[in-house]
């Protein structure tokens, strides 16, 4: 069971959209932004509210790469593996991040829920390839070394916030 606060926040989101099928994707976006993932319990709840079946809501949500039913870390690192970044060696950056965090192609989020590492194809910063994005912030011209430093800085930032 989810805590009531999840439903309260969801109600607030729902109140801003017409109760129609077309609101589904924007609503899931907002839920994902609010909780860093899409708690599975909320999908039937949303579906009911906008008048579609939960099967449909699940079908749609599972289609889109960006939506995740698993909780993501505080810092979502999206490493660009678009063409421009790929030909400028984005893979070593990805590998470094994964090895430093003990993550893999299958495992995306660290156990302490601090980091999630994913790939994305193009961030629109191709001329600064290879690029990656931490939450909404783009980091240009990455190297494995810079990736390591970046993790260190993020860890420090997180501990300050604690």
């Amino acid at each position, binding site marked *: 069971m989810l805590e009531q606060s999840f439903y309260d926040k969801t109600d607030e989101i729902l109140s801003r959209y017409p109760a129609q099928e077309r609101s589904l994707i924007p609503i899931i976006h907002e839920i994902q932004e609010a909780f860093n993932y899409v708690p599975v319990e909320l999908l039937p709840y949303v579906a009911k509210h906008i008048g579609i079946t939960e099967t449909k809501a699940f079908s749609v949500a599972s289609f889109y790469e960006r939506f995740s039913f698993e909780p993501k870390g505080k810092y979502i690192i999206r490493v660009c593996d678009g063409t421009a970044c790929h030909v400028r060696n984005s893979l070593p950056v990805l590998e470094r991040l994964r090895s430093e965090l003990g993550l893999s192609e299958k495992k995306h989020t660290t156990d302490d829920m601090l980091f999630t590492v994913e790939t994305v194809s193009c961030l629109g910063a191709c001329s*600064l390839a290879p690029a990656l994005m931490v939450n909404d912030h783009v980091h240009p011209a990455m190297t494995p070394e810079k990736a390591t430093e970046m993790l260190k800085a993020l860890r420090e930032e997180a501990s300050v916030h604690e």
Partner: protein
Amino acid sequence: MSRITTQEELNALQGKFMSEIKAEPIRILVCAGTGCQASGSLNVYEKMKELAENTEIKVEFALHVQHPHVHKSGCLGFCEQGPLVRIEPFGVLYTKVKPEDCEEIFNETVKKGEIIHRLLYKNKITGEECFNQDSIPFYNGQTRVVLRTCGTIDPESIEEAISAGEYQALSKTLFKMTPDEVIQTVLDSKLRGRGGGGFVAGKKWQQVASQPVTERYVVCNGDEGDPGAFMDCSIMEGDPHRMIEGMIIAAYATGAHEGYIYVRAEYPLAVKRLTLAIKQATEYGLLGDNILGSGFSFNLHINRGAGAFVCGEGSALTASIEGKRGMPRVKPPRTVEEGLFGKPTVLNNVETYANVPQIILAGAEWYRSIGTENSPGTKTFALTGAVRNTGLVEVPFGITPREIIFNIGGGIRDDKKFKAVQIGGPSGGCLTEKQLDEPLDFDSVKKLGVIVGSGGLVVMDENTCMVEVARFFMEFTHRESCGKCVPCREGTLRMLEILERIVAGNGRMEDIEELRTLSDLIIHTALCGLGKSAPLPVVSTLNSFMDEYIAHIQDKKCPAHVCQKLKQYVIEPTKCKSCSKCARGCPVQAIDGKPKVPYVINQDKCIKCGACIETCPFKAIYVA
């Protein structure tokens, strides 16, 4: 602010904003596009602002104003050199500016009009200093029509947009032209869609306008999923009003009253600026009900994508806006007949819409004077990869790839050898040295077996393995396949398997034939453009770089030394001092040796981790 209710009011306002901006003695524009922001331009902006606000200094040659103005601008296209700072009225362009530089810029340039030489861009070949934008080779080969305002106005201020002439074309269409005349002008201009297909925009509008159903929609495709392309991103970020204006004009021409902009979720800045632009335009009465008092109404919404490349395809995009899975559907009916919510829909690309206002203002004839006979106008390209100057460029159609890569792009980085340029992204193919002097326009490029596509140009040098590039694109299309139709879902999987096998050194000669038959099948039977074009990078590399495929398959070698599994780590016996350091570091005990005899790597055991190369104090180990 109050709503503008007549054409005259708009003109008056433009004049007012223009004089206000002219009155600014010094105008500092800090680029705040995605690229420069990533390089820290916002810190530069804050610092500049702080300096400007707290300064006591009198600007000597403009005594009537107390302090200079600092603005954010959209992408100037030269992101690689960012953060960029431009200072008007001198027109000086500083590159790679850091917050620490701001004080000096203030003291020297702003106060005294002195140039700071170390911040100027230096011509990479001649070494010459480039004082302003026009003297930089990157810019002087370009023709900026669509990007005219990108980088010179603050995209978050509609006042600047209006002063730069945005919404003038709208006012002209609303008050001086009938919808049919608008369509005719766009038809006459021969404007073709910039989203990849090159379909004549005016025809599409005409078809929608002639549908019996009167509820219609105008949709802008800002999904830009092509990896390695960011043209639409820069337009949306740099001057969102221009493209919005184009959409309103399309709506007026086709009788639509509702519009949607579908933007990639990976472009948060574009979403932010579009949202702001819509808000501001609505407040000024340039959007919404009764636009400019003309009686015409048009409302605009923004939908964010959610990470599915296939949603760039028209029917998948409309499905996604409707709240469904973004799966392409069969045609007919076409989008112009039954598009969004089953209604006739104009769907155009960001850049297509951004071309419209200029066409309306300057006329179809002017437009056709740029570019080629059948591909008039300009095209923006995202020039990336192994070139010296990467960035966003706008060039007239008909220019050659060589001019773009070697003049504007400054040639290949580190003086390496040019190998190929990938055009059209995952739906396109490679152009080789031989094809560099062919004109770049919709039809000529098709004859070379590639497409203009949305505008990604990824330059590859001798260090790029073309088989690996083919594998990379196949992996992309396979991952992005919606999974609906058999040839694309299953066929791309099998093609990817084969390519993976080849780059891992396990290829067989039959694989080439199998790749060709699968390509043929998928191209001819897939349901949508994603599948139909998915094999093109493979076909194109098979045609131009067969020798590389054969090297991988028969000789088990990667000529570009890229494919990890085909690398061979070898000890040069003459250099090896038998120190045993490498053997101790090897995680799989693949290195054997005795004192005084050169060590040897057992290739069967070696997992190509590369650790030994780093450990050898005598640099005796190399990759063969």
